[in-house]
């Protein structure tokens, strides 16, 4: 992947493509870690509500 070409040949679309790749890679890792914690918390809350109701 030629990054210098992306920065010089039509740089608006080149920069946007690079930003997409960097942002998406970062978010995938970050959301992967934090989202898993969210799932555990959601299921714990639902279980507590269920136990209180019954």
């Amino acid at each position, binding site marked *: 992947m030629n990054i210098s070409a992306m920065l010089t040949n039509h740089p608006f679309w080149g920069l946007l493509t690079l930003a997409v790749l960097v*942002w998406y890679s970062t978010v995938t890792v970050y959301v992967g870690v934090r*989202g898993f914690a969210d799932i555990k*918390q959601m299921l714990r809350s*639902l279980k507590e509500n269920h136990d209180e109701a019954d």
Partner: protein
Amino acid sequence: MTHFNWLLDGSIVGVYLLATMAAGLMVRKYVSKVDHFLVAGREMNVYLGIASLAATEFGIVTAMYTAQAGYTRGFAGAVPGICNAVAMFVIGWTGFCVKPLRDSGVMTIPELFERRYGKFVRWLSGVVIVLGGLLNMGVFLRVGGQFLVVCCGMNLRYLELAMTVLLIGVAAYTILGGMLSVLVTDFLQFIVMSVGLLVVTFLVLHQVGWDKMVTTVQTNFGDGGFNPFVPKDLGWPFVLSNLLVNAAAVLTWQAVTARLLAAKDSKTGRKVFTGTAFFFICRWVIPGIWGIAALAMIEPSVVEKIGLQFGEKDGSLFAMPFLLSQIVPAGMMGLLVAAMLAADMSTDSSYMLTWGSVIYNDILAPFRKVAWSEKKGLLWNRCIIALIGVFLLIWGLWYKLEGNLWEYLQTTGTIYLASMTVLLIACCYWKRANNWGAIAAIVVGAVLPVLSLSLDLFVKVPALDAAGQALFKDGKAVLEGWAKHNIGEHLVTIATFAAVTVAMVIGSLLKPKPQRA
């Protein structure tokens, strides 16, 4: 010749499918109330919301139409993604409409409408939302199946069977676990989908090269391939109509709104919107790059031949999957197919639940004279989703798409996007808005797109080139729809939004004010 290896790649896909089904079915034990089934007990937090919204709004159909936009319009084809991201960020950041909507504690948008416009408008809104949504979703299965056939080299005879098996799998965990299963599987699918999309994009950029892509776009589209304001068939109507449709979709597309309504509170919902906004650029740029790469690497005659194989006049939809079948090696192909299945399953499950929730909550509301028990409510919701699955299967097999996929999705979406958006804004911010204006807006919003679609289907006129001369192909005049030829799809969309706004204002002002005692 595709590089899909049934032993190696098939195993990767099989492991993904098993993990998804297990995760989706495992959480069904937490569902004991309709509230859990439809909005996950409103326990969704920010990062799960971002993963779920991103996974829901990216299906195989998304990859196909955004790649088609790259193939037929170059980089300018990705402009709708920029419009979508701007709309979502601004709405999330300001809380415009979404704050009062979430704070109201409703489960669907029509439920909020009842408070301002009455029971009939709630029911009518539900009908319009479900009609537009199901017509929109009706093409998902077929397009998803076509991707798999072209990309994996699967026999065309097995297309229907593959679609049916995929739908049954998705329906199983959605019917049992509702929004809880959808959120958990969405999370898993977001990870698989994202890894696959990123790996394949790096591969495409490495194999084809940036300079070659830019040169291809310049050769085929000139400056119009980079700037949407240059081409005659795009220009400001294209940008404005996409801004309107995407802002409307952020506000009222029930699959998006479902995440807002499942969030813990309006602050969490708004964070989900601002956090996911940039993903909507990724959603158009990544497959758009694949589409441009296909334009650079694949002969147009090959693309046309693949289209004819599916009985489609225009083969541009199949250029991207054909390119991937040629350049993605075995092993990585399994990851790609798993990623695309993940994208498709998360979209299908969310959409089935979404339209099902409107049918249960709003269309069936007049028939619930007394409150139903939780058990009866859950049973009805599950039956509705199963029936939606049957409808999708029949419509997906029967309906043959003509023309540009994104434009079809825009038109069917506009049936309700324009009117529901105007109703929502008026409901939140205009005290004079009433049921007269709401009914007028819904009727106008549904009639104009349907009229335009009908004129395009039944009244054909000769297509003209840039010089105003009739176009010929294989000795026959090329025909196009009347509305497309004389007005243009983008202006029809803009006119619909304008007409709906006028209908709401005039209708509301015509209704006499109630006399004060």
